[in-house]
């Protein structure tokens, strides 16, 4: 299929618009589900009505954005169908059953969410039942993004065995190894915590805006208190992100080196408008951490609700300082230096904002809310922009879902006849060459003589578990060669 022209705008930017729009709304919806449940439980346990009211209003907002997000998702599907038709039908074909399960979860979520909000008052006398209904949203959301993250992770790190398996077996609607690809777990953890953090800071930011607009004391107390509740949840989730992010990038370094180096070196679209988006995102995260710690250090001496004890605040600050020292050692000292500068500057700014508003965190809520939104957008953008391009060239990841003879027709905004032919296939290595290349990477070939000939099947399997990158076919050939006692 030939891609659709879109008013002169490169297709990747159209998809980026739909994708980021959906991410901004979808992530918010997922995180808000968690915030609502926590607020409702606290309200019920403490018998404080304002938290229940906050949960209800937040859930109404949730219902609204949920539908906007759904419609946007449909728009994304249409845009992908028109602009990247072959890519899209291939990936849908490969992940058909996960998508179907995703759809079932989506329906269960929508129904549960609807009942939870619209029957809030009717279920007032059955509060535990109502809370249980709300709690159901969390596993539904978790499972829903579990599937989407698996597919998203696959597009970045299909892995070696997975690619091999898919090429051999054809596209079957479900592929266990493709779903559980190398970066899936890290992406899922990172997104799960990031969603809660983003939603919490967003709701705190919303409370901050309301605090600016209202003059009534009771309302001010309500927004201040509920903003702090959201802020605390968000901050707790934020703390995990740099650590998960480190492991995530470590997986990328091994399984998607092109993407990793694109991100780290600011190559291609990661470098946008003269700005390296990945570094900018990290400076924003440092600013968020710093401002939040400034807020908590300012509060630690008071007995106000949701304050943290001083030793905990300074303990967290010390931990992240050490963490970023380690990051400086792994990456560059410039990274460490600017992170500390932004964190420290933001810490001072956070303390000043709270003092300036006589203890009200309205400005701080707004400040971190904006930073949080920008961070989520930049994070999503960097991940997608870091991936080798769909449109500029045939990326090596593409061959995961497309048999080789069709690769040349993929992703390129040119007619198939204009695409240069692929270079001829390299001749297959013989088994002896395979043994020399793979085995000698970790140990000498003399060691091979110490094993019994009938034990090679087990040994080759063990070596693959240790990390030797062999396809099934290569493993079979090596095993057969060694079992036969041939020279290498």
């Amino acid at each position, binding site marked *: 299929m030939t891609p659709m022209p879109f008013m002169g705008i490169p297709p990747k930017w159209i998809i980026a618009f739909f994708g980021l729009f959906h991410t901004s709304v979808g992530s918010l919806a997922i995180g808000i589900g968690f915030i609502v449940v926590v607020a409702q439980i606290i309200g019920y346990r403490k018998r404080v009505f304002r938290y229940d009211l906050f949960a209800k209003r937040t859930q109404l907002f949730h219902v609204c954005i949920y539908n*906007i997000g759904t419609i946007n998702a449909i728009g994304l599907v249409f845009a992908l169908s*028109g602009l990247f038709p072959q890519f899209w039908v291939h990936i849908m074909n490969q992940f058909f059953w996960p998508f179907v399960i995703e759809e079932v979860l989506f329906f269960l979520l929508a129904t549960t969410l609807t009942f939870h909000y619209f029957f809030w008052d009717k279920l007032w006398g059955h509060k535990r039942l109502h809370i249980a209904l709300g709690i159901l949203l969390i596993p539904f959301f978790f499972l829903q993004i579990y599937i989407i993250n698996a597919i998203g992770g696959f597009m970045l790190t299909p892995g070696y065995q997975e690619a091999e398996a898919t090429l051999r077996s054809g596209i079957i609607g479900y592929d266990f190894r493709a779903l559980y690809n190398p970066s899936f777990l890290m992406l899922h953890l990172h997104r799960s915590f990031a969603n809660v953090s983003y939603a919490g800071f967003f709701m705190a930011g919303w409370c901050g805006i309301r605090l600016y607009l209202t003059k009534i004391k009771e309302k001010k107390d309500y927004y201040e208190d509920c903003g702090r509740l959201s802020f605390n949840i968000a901050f707790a989730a934020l703390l995990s992100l740099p650590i998960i992010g480190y492991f995530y990038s470590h997986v990328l370094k091994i399984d998607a080196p092109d993407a990793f180096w694109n991100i780290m070196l600011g190559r291609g679209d990661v470098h946008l408008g003269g700005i390296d988006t990945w570094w900018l995102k990290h400076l924003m995260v440092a600013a968020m951490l710093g401002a939040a710690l400034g807020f908590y250090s300012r509060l630690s001496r008071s007995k106000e609700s949701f304050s943290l004890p001083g030793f905990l605040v300074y303990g967290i600050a010390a931990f992240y300082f050490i963490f970023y020292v380690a990051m400086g050692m792994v990456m560059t000292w410039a990274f460490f230096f600017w992170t500390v500068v932004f964190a420290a500057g933001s810490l001072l700014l956070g303390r000043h904002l709270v003092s300036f508003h006589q203890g009200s965190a309205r400005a701080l809520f707004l400040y971190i809310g904006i930073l949080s939104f920008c961070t989520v957008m930049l994070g999503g953008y960097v991940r997608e922009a870091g991936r080798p391009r769909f449109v500029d060239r045939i990326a090596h990841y593409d061959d995961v879902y497309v048999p080789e003879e069709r690769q040349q027709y993929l992703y390129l905004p040119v007619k198939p006849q204009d695409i240069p032919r692929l270079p001829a296939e390299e001749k297959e290595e013989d088994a002896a060459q395979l043994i020399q290349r793979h085995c000698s990477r970790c140990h000498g070939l003399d060691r091979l003589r110490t094993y019994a000939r009938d034990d090679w099947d087990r040994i080759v399997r063990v070596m693959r578990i240790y990390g030797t990158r062999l396809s099934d076919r290569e493993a079979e050939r090596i095993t057969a060669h060694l079992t036969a006692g041939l020279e290498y």
Partner: protein
Amino acid sequence: MDLPIIQTPLFPRYIWMEEVIYSHIPIATLITAFLVLAPFMELIGYKRRDLRWDRLARSLVFFAMILYSPGAALGTGIPIFIIGLYPEFWARWSNLFFWPLIIQFIFFTIDVIFLFFFYYLPWDRMMDRKRRHIFFGFVTAFFGLAIQAVWDALGSYTLTPGAAFPAVTEAVGWSAQAFFNPTYPFLFFHRFFGNFSYTMLLVGGVLALKYMRARVKSEKDYYGWACDVTFSFGFLSFFAMPIIGYGYAKVIQAKAPVAFHAIMGGHVSGAFTLKMVLILVFVSIAATYLFIRHKNKLPMLAAVTAGFGGLYVVLHLHPALDWLGSAVAWRTAYSLIIVGFLVYLWRMRARGRPITERRWPWLMFAAGMAAFFTFAIGGFVRERSKNPYAVYLQHEKPEAVPEERDRFLFYRVCIGCHHQNAGDLLKIRGENWRARVERERRRLGVDLTDEEAGRIIRYLEENTR
């Protein structure tokens, strides 16, 4: 693209596809009808200073809000299933209609923003700015209808294309011929009035049950009024359907004769007949209700009588059915039934018992359910009659199974010349089909390849044992 076809468990792919679509369409049509009617009701209430209309309008919008999220979630399932099960069809179809799909997305976004943030949520806050609120309601309704207009064009294309499917290497995006295809206006208006009719009859039936259960007088009064308004409106809307439906069928006959044969005596004729029976059920109940309940509103009763007159004209224009042996017997029968039913209605107006009896809420509910299933079966008939569930004669879905292809080849080749319908041919038992087909294909004008003849023989042998 030669993608492998994903096999579905339990049922064939088209059954799964149908079920996913049917789960979405009743919800979507309910929402569209409610959102179109709500601002009109609100406007009437505002003009008459009658808060009951406002309450009814708000109830409809509230119910639409409850349905919106599950309906949208189910809607997303449709592209997922189509892309997975019919990947090439989807890729080429969404290529042809890329711009309408994107515009539909914009309409949808505007619709949901107006519905949530300008219409439903500020209802109480805008009680003193009613005109503006009603205006927002109309904006919501407009975009809801605009979404339906786009989808009807895309859906009707698959029955009567008007333009060919694009080639694999051709980026199209938009085709006026394809969009404004022959059955588009008929499908749109048939659905437009159909949505009003079935949803309001259904709502009237449900409100009648609420009326029966209400204990507080003010509530009972409200539900009594509301069920009457909605039920009566739903029934009056119905009378547009046979007239539009007749025109719709004529266009299908001219532009998609194979689909027409499938409905009229073909493999979906049983469902079409069941739909007619259900129409008879709710028409009988609703007409009797109106003549008793509104015995003093002569213009309304005259309108219903005129509606039956229109129905009579449609039946008269329709070719006679041979159910009763001859055309004369058929025409005599339906003339007597319609005239007799009108006499019965006018007598009920004079002598019928008041609508306070307990059975009436249940009868109204039954009529509402019959209307709902009429609607559902109508959609089923249209979809099942399509040439391998795709674009008629222009492009068969690459994913169509052999039996689907053979069935439509049989319709196209055999039914056109024979004055029998598909059902009659399939009733024949013990025929040597091979000899028969060989004989028939020697006739002048029959252009049948050996491969096609073999497929028809196979189809007939497998389906007439």
